[in-house]
């Protein structure tokens, strides 16, 4: 950092430094005015807390300023292009936030009498209906809390169905390009995981898959479009082979944005697929959650779906909360209460806003935007697999060969240019992956600026200016952080500084 930029405060104009709350403690202050409780007998049975907790005291304006300053150290979709491949960082409509906060929705307790929540059950049923029609599958569970949770619940549903026919099986096949959650979910369901190689076209090697399919395979977990951004064009042949082996076809729906409204997974032979409402259906990622991961199911799996279930009864709705109230063989409960209702509100508002026509346009524009990046960057970057791609485009790092610049360095230089980096080093099937997913909510002007920036940086890398990349980012609240030190000596909670030792 050049001295000329040094300030007395460490602040740099609008870029303001901010200490953690524990360092802003004014003991006795509170940002909430509450009445003094009327003194009386306590019923804590001698188990009252003794001694201070150690929470800091701040007033409301200090708290608001603190979190506002922290927010300004973040990059969000609202800030600019966020082309994280496989994450579908699309615009999060503000209407959805308003609707989720309606007192008649956000203010509902999960255990009110069913007669007092008919509108909420109707909403869950409507959301389920849209998702079933869009995927062309007859059943759904709305219970899972996120995509990975949906994967696990889907696999558990498959396992329950297999066990019910006396055929538990032991293995799950997962392509090597899969998200890490896929093998982790299969393991959490008690299955051994076996990897399937990719072919030279970036798709599953169907021969290798068929060779591994036998009477011990419970399911295949495939992402389609896959994590190379490519549609598995042999998918129907794969589905037939999986079904012939008596196994189920699980599809990771993380990339559903590419085909929503244009292709129904049920038509591809898929039995089970989670939908990340926080990807395709625009609910906010919120810095890592909350998500929601409903799972759509083919007919043989429907009886084994987890609790609870919303059912139409006469002109109203019922909530099946216990196995004894169900005619099927439900898996059991996988989450407290009834799923991520607040996310269902947002997703339904999104689907109704776009409609069948708009959702189809979403897929088309998402795919168009990604192919536009592919077309305009393929001569600058290196493309491991020929297009067309679907909603995301994968490059590898061979364009950086002999420049001394890595994929990571390149991404950090993108940050200084005002872009969030693309997904890096994933999928693992190519070296130094750069996976870009622009989504449909980016304008052509934004994409053009991004393209010119990538081209300019690639030229700079090839011109031998590795220093520029190694030093990046320079313009962020913090520059590169020492992750090794953080892991070697984990400091996960704030502790007061030790008292100054007397000299």
């Amino acid at each position: 950092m050049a001295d000329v930029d040094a300030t007395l405060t460490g602040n740099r104009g609008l870029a303001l430094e901010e200490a953690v709350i524990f360092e802003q403690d004014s003991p006795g202050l509170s940002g909430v005015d509450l009445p003094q409780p009327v003194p009386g007998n306590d019923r804590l049975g001698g188990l009252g807390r003794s001694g201070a907790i150690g929470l800091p005291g701040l007033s409301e304006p200090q708290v608001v300023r603190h979190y506002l300053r922290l927010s300004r150290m973040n990059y969000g979709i609202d800030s600019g292009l966020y082309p994280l491949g496989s994450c579908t960082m699309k615009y999060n409509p503000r209407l959805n936030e308003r609707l989720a906060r309606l007192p008649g929705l956000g203010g509902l307790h999960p255990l009110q009498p069913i007669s007092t929540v008919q509108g909420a059950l109707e909403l869950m049923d409507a959301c389920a209906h849209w998702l079933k029609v869009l995927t062309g599958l007859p059943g759904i569970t709305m219970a899972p809390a996120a995509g990975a949770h949906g994967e696990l619940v889907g696999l558990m549903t498959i396992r329950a169905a297999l066990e019910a026919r006396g055929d538990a099986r032991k293995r799950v096949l997962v392509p090597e390009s899969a998200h890490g959650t896929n093998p982790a979910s299969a393991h959490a369901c008690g299955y051994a995981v076996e990897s399937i190689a990719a072919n030279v076209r970036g798709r599953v090697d169907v021969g290798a898959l068929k060779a591994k399919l036998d009477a011990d395979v419970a399911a295949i977990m495939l992402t389609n479009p896959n994590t190379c951004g490519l549609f598995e064009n042999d998918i129907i042949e794969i589905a037939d082979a999986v079904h012939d082996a008596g196994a189920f076809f699980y599809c990771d729906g993380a990339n559903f944005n590419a085909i929503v409204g244009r292709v129904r997974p049920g038509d591809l032979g898929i039995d089970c697929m989670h939908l990340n409402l926080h990807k395709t259906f625009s609910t906010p990622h919120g810095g890592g959650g909350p998500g929601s991961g409903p799972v759509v199911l083919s007919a043989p799996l429907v009886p084994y779906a987890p609790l609870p279930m919303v059912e139409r009864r006469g002109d109203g709705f019922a909530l099946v909360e216990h196995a004894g109230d169900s005619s099927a063989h439900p898996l059991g409960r996988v989450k407290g209460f009834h799923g991520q209702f607040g996310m269902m509100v947002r997703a339904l508002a999104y689907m109704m806003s776009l409609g069948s026509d708009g959702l189809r346009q979403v897929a088309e524009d998402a795919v168009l935007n990604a192919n536009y990046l592919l077309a305009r960057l393929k001569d600058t970057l290196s493309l491991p697999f020929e297009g067309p791609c679907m909603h995301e485009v994968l490059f590898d790092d061979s364009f950086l060969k002999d420049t001394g610049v890595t994929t990571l360095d390149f991404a950090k230089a993108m940050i200084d240019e005002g872009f969030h980096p693309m997904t890096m080093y994933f999928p693992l099937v190519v070296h130094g992956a750069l996976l870009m997913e622009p989504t449909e909510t980016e304008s052509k002007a934004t994409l053009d600026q991004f393209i010119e920036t990538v081209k300019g940086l690639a030229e700079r890398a090839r011109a031998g200016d590795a220093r520029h990349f190694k030093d990046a980012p320079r313009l962020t609240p913090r520059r590169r952080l020492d992750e090794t030190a953080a892991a070697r000596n984990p400091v996960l909670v704030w502790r007061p500084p030790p008292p100054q030792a007397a000299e």
Partner: protein
Amino acid sequence: MRYLPLTDGDRREMLAAIGVGSVDDLFVDVPREARRDGPVDLPEHLGEMEVERAFAAMAARNLSTADVPSFLGAGAYGHHVPAAVDHLIQRGEFLTSYTPYQPEVSQGTLAYLFEFQTQVALITGMEVANASLYDGATACAEAVTMAARITKRKKVVLSGGLHPHYREVTETMTRFLGIEMAAAGPDWRGGEDLASGVDDGTACVVVQNPAFFGHLTDFAPLAEACHAAGALLVVVVTEVVSLGAVRPPGEMGADIVAVEGQSLGNALNFGGPTVGVLAARQKHLRQMPGRLVGETTDVDGRRGFVLTLSTREQHIRREKATSNICTNAGLCALAFTIHLTLLGEVGFARLAALNHAGAVRLADRLAGIDGIDVVNDTFFNEFTIRLPKPAVAVVDALADRKILGGVPVARLIPGRAELEHLLLVAVTEASTEAHIDALTEALREVL
């Protein structure tokens, strides 16, 4: 199509740059028989006003806790959330950011998660906490698998005071992992003996404080019994506000604490999303599931924060990870943290004291009604009463009078005659004297 910025002119130019005639040419890898030429059978797009009307109509078919006296609890509590919380979590930089994998542009998220972890460790009396899980029930299931990994044992004892959803979720999520679950029967009077079920094959005992039925227990003797047998004690807390008044699990010898944090900063949301979190002893850190934020420095020597110990996680370790969790409850954790920061030491204790004092007042009032027994000797802000009639019918009759009178135990544990007349009643700072009057009067009428 208000969310789509491309114009038809843009689309034409882009197709030309790509070198294809139409967007259909980009879908050539989809098998022909699976391509749909027209839209699916769903309604067409709507303007903001039309969508808003449709949702207002659905909302109007519900009875909101915001509009009537509510005494509902059982793991979800209607607390007052300060206005600043909801304003701040809707800052686009928080709301629309991803998991903080790029720390240089995510210091905001990382800093608040570090504060969250610290606050959770402080209020539970534990040494470390993670950066959130989905909810309390799944956190409980994760605590059990974590204990099984640490002890390399397979037997688990579940208290009859554990929330029935937590028990069911833990049973389902561990069903295929060879874990042997011994669940005690509903402990609605308190005082169950769990220690005698602990042996050298026990991975952990899972208890809840305050219990599902409201009573409080000193788990220090049970912790000792667990530790003597090489087992761990997992303590579940479904009402996090209780930690402002009640001795924390860490002081009772808990090894892992699974918390539902909804009460701080988060609306009821019909049960989700909420925020789960695990707190633990430092020595068990590497068996912990979920994300962890750690302090470090940048190349200029300034303090900053990063995601750390990610070699436990699925994106690095794949099938060998401690959990499959990826997305957690980041924004709900932010709401929790802002609310607790606003409260501070003094405010958190006072909030808890208000909740408790309100519950004591209501318990005394209800005890004065003929036919009602207050079951609990001890409680925080929720307790069990026995009614002279089945609780479901009473609650329905109260709902007809626009009062949400509590949660019948039979809603969660059906089919047991001895529980049919039991009702859980919760009080928070949002319950007014008028609400308490309304409930007691209405109960006199319907009983």
